[in-house]
């Protein structure tokens, strides 16, 4: 029996994959706890899962500020914001809490989210073995291809964080914070990631971690489709609702003449009248819905993409920012979907893209192939196997 501490950022998509892995470890008799932003953790984790409480919690003001300021940012603005106004302040804010969570919980292994570097930092500080939980594969390949200077700028962000928390200048090492030398868990497979980089044995490509998910109060799980025709899910993820106004309009226009039903996940107050074949919901239990649809239109968030492919579903991707363009490139390269431009796509083009993935069997066949690679990779079971080996 060993003790595992998950250190996670205040991002739903980064917490969800750890839940399945944590539950799998608990079933094997290990003791597991999470440390992160409590309000979000409490919302996502079942009550029987332990959240470590410390006297130093992540301030709500930081979370609210990030939420407010990040709205609508794209491209290099979003990138600058992500590193300077999200990742770095979050890392600073979490160091005291992670230290005290480690003192309280006494983990044998820390599982630190890749974008929540306080976890890796405190593990290093205490000589504790840690694994990196890479909830998007974008950071594992080079996300700065187009602007290579940004790599050293991002490295500087990480190193100045380390130095300000007691690491000697000559010992600061950004790559160590990004990728644990012990184990890096990636919730995808090389079939999707591609082969532009060689990965050592300590990279575990386990495929999506599909866990039991706590239904949110506001979400309804009833299946809403009315007939036996083709069905699609249209979603821009948990944080992009408001920026999607134009895209939603285009999608609704496109749906007017598509012979399929669509479930559009969006804030209903942003949506006016909808065609008869469209249903709008603010929240859905995505994993439940995916079992009932034939295709997915998404912003290319890593979780939505791998969860869709887990069900063998082809995709239309309209990346907005962050890792989404990289993930969307993977979708196109694996020929499991079609990419459109989020801010420019017109109804006619979106309709063609949706009809392609619905009717051209190649996309579904390739998606099925990725699904098989995911099933073979072992998901949360394999992640737990690899974590046990660290003890």
């Amino acid at each position, binding site marked *: 029996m060993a003790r595992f501490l998950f250190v996670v950022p205040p991002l739903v998509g980064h917490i969800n994959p750890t839940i399945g892995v944590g539950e799998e470890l608990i079933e094997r008799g290990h003791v597991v706890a999470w440390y992160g932003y409590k309000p979000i953790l409490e919302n996502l984790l079942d009550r029987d899962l332990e959240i470590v409480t410390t006297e130093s919690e992540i301030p709500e003001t930081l979370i609210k500020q990030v939420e407010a300021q990040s709205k609508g940012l794209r491209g*290099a603005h979003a990138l600058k914001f992500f590193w300077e106004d999200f990742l770095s302040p979050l890392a600073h804010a979490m160091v005291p809490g992670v230290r005290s969570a480690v003192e309280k919980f006494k983990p044998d292994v820390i599982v630190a989210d890749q974008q929540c570097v306080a976890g890796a930092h405190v593990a290093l500080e205490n000589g504790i073995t840690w694994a990196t939980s890479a909830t998007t594969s974008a950071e594992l390949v080079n996300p700065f291809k*187009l602007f290579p200077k940004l790599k050293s700028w991002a490295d500087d962000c990480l190193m100045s964080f380390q130095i300000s928390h007691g690491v000697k200048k000559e010992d600061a090492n950004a790559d160590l914070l990004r990728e644990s030398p012990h184990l890096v868990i990636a919730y995808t497979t090389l079939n999707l990631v591609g082969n532009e980089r060689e990965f050592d044995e300590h990279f575990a490509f386990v495929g999506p971690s599909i866990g039991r998910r706590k239904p949110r109060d506001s979400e309804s799980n009833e299946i809403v489709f009315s007939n036996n025709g083709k069905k699609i899910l249209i979603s821009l993820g948990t944080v992009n609702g408001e920026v999607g106004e134009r895209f939603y309009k285009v999608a609704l226009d496109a749906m007017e003449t598509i012979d399929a039903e669509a479930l559009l996940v969006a804030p209903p107050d942003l949506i006016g009248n909808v065609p008869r074949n469209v249903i709008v919901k603010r929240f859905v239990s995505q994993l439940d819905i995916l079992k009932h649809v034939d295709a997915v239109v998404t912003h290319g968030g890593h979780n939505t993409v791998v969860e869709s492919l887990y069900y063998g579903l082809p995709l239309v991707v309209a990346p907005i920012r962050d890792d989404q363009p990289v993930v969307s490139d993977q979708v196109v390269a694996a020929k499991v979907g079609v990419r459109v*431009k989020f801010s420019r796509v017109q109804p006619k083009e979106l309709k063609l893209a949706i009809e392609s993935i619905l009717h051209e069997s190649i996309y579904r066949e390739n998606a099925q192939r990725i699904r098989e690679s995911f099933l073979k990779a072992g998901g949360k079971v394999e992640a737990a196997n690899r974590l046990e080996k660290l003890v």
Partner: protein
Amino acid sequence: MLPLQQLSEKEVLNTVRELIYEVVGEDYAIDLEVEMETSFQDDLELESIEFVTLAERLMDTFGESVDFTSWIANMEVEEIIAMTVGQLVEYISKSLE
């Protein structure tokens, strides 16, 4: 068309404008103003794949000396955010000299 070396700044701008319209797509280009002070990030919201395509078109049009990819590779994050069409036009004119 004139020999590339003799293109005036205005002619370079006109060509760049046409290429940007091609890259973003005709349907969308109708509403898009492309002038010297137009910014790639805030005004054009150029996406990563569009940067790649634009780089290819620029090289096809102006020749190997106009290496957009290498040019932007040296940019810091602030410079990327501030980059304007005018800067690209100046870079092209200089590269063609």
